């Protein structure tokens, strides 16, 4: 239940992140000064918080998306299985986010 709304929220969050992804590419194409301005903005505390948020959103939405794809094939529908896969999704998203930033820094 909670994961369903979280799936939407992380999806919408990444739709906004998509704008930043495009801005990243456009600023890189625009040249070193423009790109520097972009990286300075993203290195701020708020910028970093957003990046961590988007990485979590990605891992959560991807894992929960796989869960949805499994449901589409008619699998994993009973209550116990659905509860169990929900915890796996949350655990994976948290662990993957931590591992990603540990590897990135």
């Amino acid at each position, binding site marked *: 239940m909670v994961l369903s709304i979280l799936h*939407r929220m992380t999806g*919408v969050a990444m739709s906004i992140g998509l704008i930043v992804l*495009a801005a990243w*590419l456009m600023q890189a*194409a625009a040249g070193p000064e423009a*790109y520097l301005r972009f990286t300075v903005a993203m290195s701020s505390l708020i910028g970093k918080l957003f990046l961590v948020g988007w990485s979590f959103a990605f891992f959560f939405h991807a894992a929960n*998306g796989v869960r949805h794809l499994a449901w589409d094939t008619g699998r994993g529908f009973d209550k116990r299985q659905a509860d169990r896969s929900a915890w796996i999704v949350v655990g994976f998203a948290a662990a993957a986010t931590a591992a990603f930033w540990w590897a990135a820094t």
Partner: protein
Amino acid sequence: MSLKTPLGRVLGLGSAKEGTDHWWGQRVSAVAMLMLGSWFIYSLLQLESLTYLDVIRFIGVPLNGVLLSLLSITLSYHSYLGVQVVIEDYVHAPGTKVVSLLLSRFAHVFVAIAAVYGILVIGIGS
């Protein structure tokens, strides 16, 4: 003002013919995003740094440029389909709904073109 029930009014008119396209498109782009997203996360971790020269060198590699373009287009498409459902679920006033859907469509096409254009400029320049 019709005395027909809502069901009576639509019976026999057929479906809007777009239901399965939307559903299927979302699934196909979801599977594509799993692969492209994994590649992107892996690539970010492989990057020496996110400074200008390292990023330009990465995007300038033809295969990376192709995959990044695919990712931008697929992500925009998947995002458009998702945002469309959210708008349809939460925006009920007919006028606002149509305008929101229209703006969402324009914004998604704009973002996809902007991303691919940026990648092309970098690819051609390097």
